[in-house]
């Protein structure tokens, strides 16, 4: 039997997939946060009517195939170098909208220098920074953001601060830089957070269009595969463990 049949008709539609997302089957793991952020990003561009003039930069990481899903012009960048690639794009086309989409391994490990310097130059680009506390793509290795004692395939007994360093708060760090106009930390594991996160992304793009400088949106998500949890459990763990260390909200605005 089917419920709600009488309601399902075009004039009653209140939510549907944005057209800037392609119909391609997403390769992400069930419950992965990447996909939600993909949608918010595309919705934001659609709401601002920027889909035609935006160039996105996809990283190396689970979202390496983002260009299959986002129906906008995109470049795939070498691991960690998305901010440099985006700088190259933006400098030759200052009127276009440019964003990078990067994981925590990409942005906070190998790409640290490019991140810091793009922010310090105040490149008019938007960073979408997916912090899932781990390297998803390559099989769940420790990232700079991995929490203390958190297990990963390269910290199988838990992250030991003394030998492996401290979970890095990139957004707080870049907020210190004069070039950064807006730095915020968001999440997408509840409907309310999803709504807030979208607002933050919209705000970032608006500031970019106003040439205010670098806008930096961190989004704390799960990597349930890397964490070796079921999706719902992963989101609970995230709320309980990640959020206290990576508190949500605007850091610089």
């Amino acid at each position, binding site marked *: 039997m089917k419920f709600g049949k009488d309601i399902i008709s075009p004039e009653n539609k209140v939510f549907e997939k944005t057209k800037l997302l392609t119909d391609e089957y997403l390769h992400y793991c069930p419950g992965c946060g990447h996909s939600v952020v993909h949608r918010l990003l595309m919705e934001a561009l659609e709401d601002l009517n920027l889909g035609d003039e935006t*160039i996105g930069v996809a990283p190396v990481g689970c979202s390496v195939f983002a260009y299959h899903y986002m129906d906008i012009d995109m*470049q795939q960048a070498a691991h960690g170098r998305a901010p440099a690639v985006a700088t190259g794009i933006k*400098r030759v086309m200052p009127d276009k909208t440019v964003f990078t989409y990067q994981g925590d391994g990409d942005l906070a490990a190998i790409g640290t220098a490019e991140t810091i310097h793009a922010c310090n130059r105040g490149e008019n680009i938007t960073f979408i920074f997916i912090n899932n506390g781990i390297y998803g793509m390559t099989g769940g290795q420790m990232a700079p953001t991995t929490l203390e004692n958190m297990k990963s395939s390269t910290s199988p007994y838990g992250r030991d601060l003394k030998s492996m360093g401290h979970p890095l708060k990139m957004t707080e760090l870049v907020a210190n830089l004069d070039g950064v106009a807006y730095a915020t930390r968001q999440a997408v594991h509840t409907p309310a957070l999803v709504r807030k996160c979208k607002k933050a992304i919209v705000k970032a793009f608006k500031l970019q269009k106003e040439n205010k400088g670098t806008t930096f949106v961190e989004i704390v998500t799960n990597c349930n595969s890397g964490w070796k949890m079921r999706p719902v459990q992963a989101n609970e763990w995230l709320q309980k463990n990640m959020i206290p260390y990576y508190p949500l909200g605007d850091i610089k605005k």
Partner: protein
Amino acid sequence: MEKDIKLMKGNEAIAEAAIRAGVDAYFGYPITPQSEVIEYLMAEQPEKRTGMVVLQAESEVAAINMIYGAAGAGKRVLTTSSSPGISLMQEGISYIAGAQLPCVLVNVVRGGPGLGTIQPSQADYFQSVKGGGHGDYKLIVLAPASVQESVDFTRLAFDIAFKYRNPVMLLTDGVLGQMMEKVEFFEQQERKKEDEPWATVGKAGRGHRNYITSLFIKPEKMYEVNLELQKKYREVEKNEVRYQEIDTEDADYLFVAYGTTARICQKACQLAREKGIKVGLLRPISLYPYPYDIINKLADKVKGVMVIEMNHGQMVEDVKLAINGKLEVGFMGRSGGIIPTPSEILEALENKFINK
């Protein structure tokens, strides 16, 4: 009508040539002996002359990836560096080649390995022509031998790069970069107006999205892309071989050398002829594609071939491949910033083939 003749350093001449070639952007990082390129550009303020963007990157790694980004937007983009900086760019270069993006890279080679010395060298031949990065890719490599050629090849390099959607490298060295010579400049070219159909500039008007990538996770697809690249390289090998023959018609012996050493060999040829020894010079201008055929042909006419390089034997392998056992191939090399002199070179040839 006065010709636009200037006396300029090779490095500065490349910078000026870039502005005139309508280049859209330069991204680079200082390193001796090539920092004059970015210094000249910063002083010239090309953003006022043509709208060209110049940015000092935080590193060579960043610079090559800025190049990737701007090249992916279909723009004419240039970076320059010297040996250690070029080594740092290898991942980026492989990406650019894999994503089939046009751009021009200049390596003003210095002596290595490691931090080495800032003096001139040709020890990056293998890196440039065989592939310093990973995977089966080819840079198209041009080796100017004068400041004038540095200028002319800068423009030519962009033409070739866009023709094949392939990175082109100018391989020069500290001598060519620091030396001043007379140059005649071509007229200011306009910057490109239309977008390349494949470029990522926002999909407005196009209807479909473009994307730039070198990722082809499925082996079948990656193999296909590689075959496409190989096809392109065969095309390049057919069309873009460039070389210069000097005094080869009646030569009994042949020097093979490029860039600075070719200039020195030219002088050695003069010295040789003064002594009654008929020596000619084959100067490869394109190092990839390499002028195998002409060298093979010349090998039928001469008694000996001598390769001169400012390294310990790199291009000599290509000469041997060209000659394929027909003749013995001699080699003389200097390295680490030591530049062979004309008489040393001649002596090496005499010792190898004449006084033996």
